[in-house]
């Protein structure tokens, strides 16, 4: 009897799902036969049998299984699929001392009948000597977790381990015991889904309908290209901390506020970026107002509250104002102008750990800046490798409004400002 375990197919894969069993329980299989189609987080692949025998499916179609978990067994024809009690006479030390079978209760004790038998009679308790968990011989769990699982009636095969190397630890068992319904649902796949059609139709909110229309319009009508830069933000990070710690009113200053200020100053230097293409003509905007893409506090959607005249405000003002305008927008009671009049937008997904991404332009604006997470990486500084903090920013550009060289210079300016954050804290000028 050989276990078929959920294989690990990518670094990020934590569990996989059997899309389809190509064979049924009881079917004979040969080594190399495709027995299932398995879906990981990245792709779907064929799972081949590694031995000859009869298939015994453990995890049914559609149920996710963590990597390493047994999903099927392949046994000899006629072999009972369930665990057999360990034959007592198979314990080797006892066999060597037939006259005193009870003499060594500690070292040579056979596993209790509830424990899983191993195929080889010479290793009734597993080759590594580890006791096997009833019904799930390959589950890796701490002794404490095993004891708790027995006390609380938790099936360890249905528990995801959070310890080193996926080991099930105390907290996993306690969590499983507390949220008992979840593992039970997984273990009882015969329970059917709620009745009804396979596809549910959901009406979009008006906001969602608007977003859908405008994004499709932007993507189909705006000839767009992208420019990405990576900025060192060590100084900006430490300056932000300094501001938070020691400047009244700056306690909530964010990296986005730094970027609003940096973009506002750069837009003033490159007025062609602060422009629109309307009816075959350029519109140069005198005011510099920056939209901030944020998620609403409830439901799905997108809000773009605006910090107006950002180039005329210093960093602290921007910080206070952006927080207020975001709050008003999220509360559903925006002030007049809070959600309109932006000439440029910033979308920052850094807080979600995104490395970098490309945002869709919000017409009639000519550009939007997509900001990734600040990451600690080795950087080469004056010929030496040192730890540094970097952040990647991608500008999406309406190519009708301005061009590659301008985009590159604009991004170089944003990068220069964010890397020299002292330029962002000097007072705003007319």
């Amino acid at each position, binding site marked *: 009897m050989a276990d078929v375990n959920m294989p690990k197919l990518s670094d990020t894969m934590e569990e996989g799902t059997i899309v389809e069993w190509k064979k049924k329980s009881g079917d004979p299989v040969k080594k190399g036969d495709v027995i299932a189609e398995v879906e990981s987080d990245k792709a779907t692949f064929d799972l081949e049998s590694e031995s000859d025998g009869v298939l015994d499916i453990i995890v049914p179609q559609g149920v996710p299984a963590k990597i390493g978990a047994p999903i099927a067994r392949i046994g000899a024809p006629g072999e009972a699929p369930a665990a057999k009690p360990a034959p007592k006479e198979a314990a080797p030390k006892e066999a060597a001392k037939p006259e005193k079978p009870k003499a060594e209760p500690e070292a040579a004790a056979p596993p209790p009948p509830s424990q899983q038998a191993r195929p080889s009679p010479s290793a009734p308790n597993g080759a590594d000597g580890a006791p096997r968990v009833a019904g799930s011989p390959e589950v890796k769990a701490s002794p*404490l977790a095993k004891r708790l699982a027995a006390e609380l009636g938790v099936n360890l095969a249905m528990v995801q381990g*959070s*310890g*080193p190397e996926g080991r099930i630890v105390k907290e996993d068992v306690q969590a499983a015991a507390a949220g008992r319904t979840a593992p039970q649902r997984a273990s009882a796949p015969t329970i059917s889904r709620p009745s009804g059609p396979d596809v549910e139709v959901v009406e979009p909110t008006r906001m969602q309908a608007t977003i859908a229309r405008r994004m499709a319009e932007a993507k189909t009508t705006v000839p767009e290209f992208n420019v990405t830069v990576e900025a060192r933000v060590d100084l900006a990070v430490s300056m932000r901390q300094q501001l938070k710690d020691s400047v009244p009113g700056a306690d909530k200053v964010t990296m986005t506020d730094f970027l609003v200020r940096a973009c506002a100053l750069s837009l003033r230097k490159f007025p062609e970026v602060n422009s629109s293409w309307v009816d075959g003509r350029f519109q140069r905007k005198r005011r510099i107002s920056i939209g901030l893409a944020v998620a609403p506090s409830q439901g799905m959607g997108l809000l773009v509250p605006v910090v107006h005249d950002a180039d005329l405000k210093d960093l602290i003002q921007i910080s206070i104002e952006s927080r207020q305008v975001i709050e008003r927008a999220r509360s559903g009671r925006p002030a007049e102008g809070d959600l309109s009049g932006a000439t440029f937008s910033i979308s920052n997904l850094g807080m979600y750990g995104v490395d970098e991404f490309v945002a869709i332009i919000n017409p009639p604006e000519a550009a939007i800046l997509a900001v990734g997470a600040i990451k*600690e990486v080795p950087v080469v500084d004056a010929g030496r490798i040192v730890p540094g903090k970097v952040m990647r920013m991608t500008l999406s550009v309406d190519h009708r409004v301005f061009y590659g060289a301008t985009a590159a210079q604009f991004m170089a300016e944003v990068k220069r400002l964010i890397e020299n954050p002292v330029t962002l804290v000097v007072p705003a000028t007319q």
Partner: protein
Amino acid sequence: MAEEKLYRVALREALAEEMERDESVYLVGEDIGKFGGAYRVTEGLLDRFGAQRVVDAPIAEEAIVGSAIGSAMLGLRPVVELMTINFSLVAYDQIVNNAAKIRYMFGGEAKVPMVIRMPGGAGHQLSAQHSHSFEVLYGLIPGLLVVAPTTPEDAKGMLKSAIRTDNPVMFLESMSLYNVRGVVPEGDYTTPIGKAAVRRTGTDVTIVGVSRMAVLAHEAAKQLEEEDIDAEVIDLRSIRPIDWPPIIESVRRTSRCLVVEEGWATYGVTAEIAAGVQERCFDYLDAPIRRLGGAQVPMPYSLPLEKASIPTSEDIKKLAREVVGRKPLDG
């Protein structure tokens, strides 16, 4: 009023007080009289108690220990100072085959109330031959009591207990602890042999430290607090016998255990503790018991290499994070 004293001063007080209290107590060792001891523990005692009771011995450890055993069998209470634990190897036969066994082999009619004080440990560029932590060589032997105090209070209290015990005691000091300062109670007190000390209570992991490593474990535990890891620290203090109850009680509570010694962990004191904890706490363990010891090399003379060969509080923190299942911190 209890006051702060150096570890070496606490030891000196214990010796002097016991010599005052009991005329059968005498000191013997190399350079302990006129020179005051290689680590200045016996300074001033020759003047105070005379050459009969503070005996400067030739460089002959086997003879020193052998004569001490003989005198102990005949009713004296010798306190031997070996300059370092490294030189005790010369006297190992006397200690293992005579000191540890005589009381058994003579059916209890002779006993060996002897203390051997000796510092061990590395960190002073004394290189391969003079940097040992040999707790395990003595912890191994039935018939010996083996202790390793880490605070001035324990140094004094346990030395007094050792001197009053009718069995041979290996009193393991640490070169790196002689200048440690700590509160020492006033007056005559003893600290029992065979008792561990819980230095810090915690809920996430039990760190058992041997000798100086208990001090480092305590430092590490204080720093781990900032990472939201609440470590319990147990100072083993007594290597033979091992005081299991507080260790078991602690591990059953924390479900995790890390054991640290300065010497080699393979076949080490930590191996013994780890095995014993596993036997007694198996169903309570939420993670494998981890051991930390010195690098498996003869101690290098090079300072950076020597530092790299001795466990540090950072090493303890790193392993503690692993035991509690935390990812290593960035940077």
